[in-house]
């Protein structure tokens, strides 16, 4: 499985340590909130909201360099419009991997 990385953040910060910290701080703040919102909408079987939450999380996934996982998230987002939850477990694994990674940075 792909591993999250900070390549994009480093590239954007271009050696500016305070910007790097700021960007990481935002990911660490926003990701748990978005993840929680996602699980809530999933529990409520609110497919539209779930799709929106997956869309938001997708951005974090790609920022953390998870290109293959991004494709899964994209597929999941599109499937949700057809009320299809086939990718729910794969998406869950992505969120777990990111949650774990964010504790290490």
């Amino acid at each position, binding site marked *: 499985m792909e591993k999250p990385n900070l390549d*994009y953040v480093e*590239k*954007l910060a271009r050696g500016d340590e305070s*910007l790097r910290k*700021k*960007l990481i701080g*935002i*990911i660490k*703040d*926003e990701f748990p909130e978005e993840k929680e919102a996602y699980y809530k909408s999933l529990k409520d079987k609110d497919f539209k909201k779930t799709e*929106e939450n997956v*869309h*938001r999380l*997708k*951005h*974090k996934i*790609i*920022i953390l360099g998870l290109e293959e996982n991004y494709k899964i998230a*994209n597929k999941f*987002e599109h499937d949700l*419009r057809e009320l299809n939850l086939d990718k729910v477990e794969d998406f869950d694994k992505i969120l777990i991997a990111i949650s774990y990674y964010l504790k290490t940075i």
Partner: protein
Amino acid sequence: MNCIIVDDEQMARVIIKTLCDEIKFLKVVGEFSNAMQAIKFLNANEIDLIFLDIHMPDFNGVDFIKTLKNPPKIILTTSDSQFAIEAFEYDFIVDYLLKPIELTRFQKAILKVQKHEPTSNEVKLDSEIKNDFYVNIDRRLIKIHLESICIVEAKGDYIHIKTEEKNYVVHSTLTRIEEKLPNSLFLRVHRSFIINVKKIVDIEDNTVVIKREVIPVSRSKRPELMKRLDLL
């Protein structure tokens, strides 16, 4: 150049602001997490450029664009290319940036903004060289090849786009789609019908037949239709 950023994600706003800071003449004068705040700001301030997230909950970028009376130039930002394709509907949309946005791509988009001065002629030319366009159906953008369109019919608030393969029902007006269709191929023959002239199989006095459908032709449109036909 004064610009604003409209995006529901803080991360996205910070990234765009960071990229703007790299361009000397760009000044970010506002950042908004929702479209309504941005509309209020635009009502009171003049700005040159908007970075607009197309996919926002409740009131998305497309809804936002539709509210603008004198829109400035817009660069769409999105993590889903299919949403951005609707950009081609509006001539004031200069470019779209796929997230995560890279600096070099961002710089290119700003260059486009500097060069972008659309005129009605330019818009017309654009539409004439396009081979296809996208329609929004149930929040999906579906590509339709222009030449495959046989008939467009207005029914209430919707238009029915009838192609060789399939029919699409789209929330739009006949006038709006007429602007997108090349004059060389399409003709509005009736207040409720636009037809692809090349698909006509039969013509009578005040009707044409396309795809086994009989389409009425207004008396005033008949001379134009006859001009278009390659008569022996």
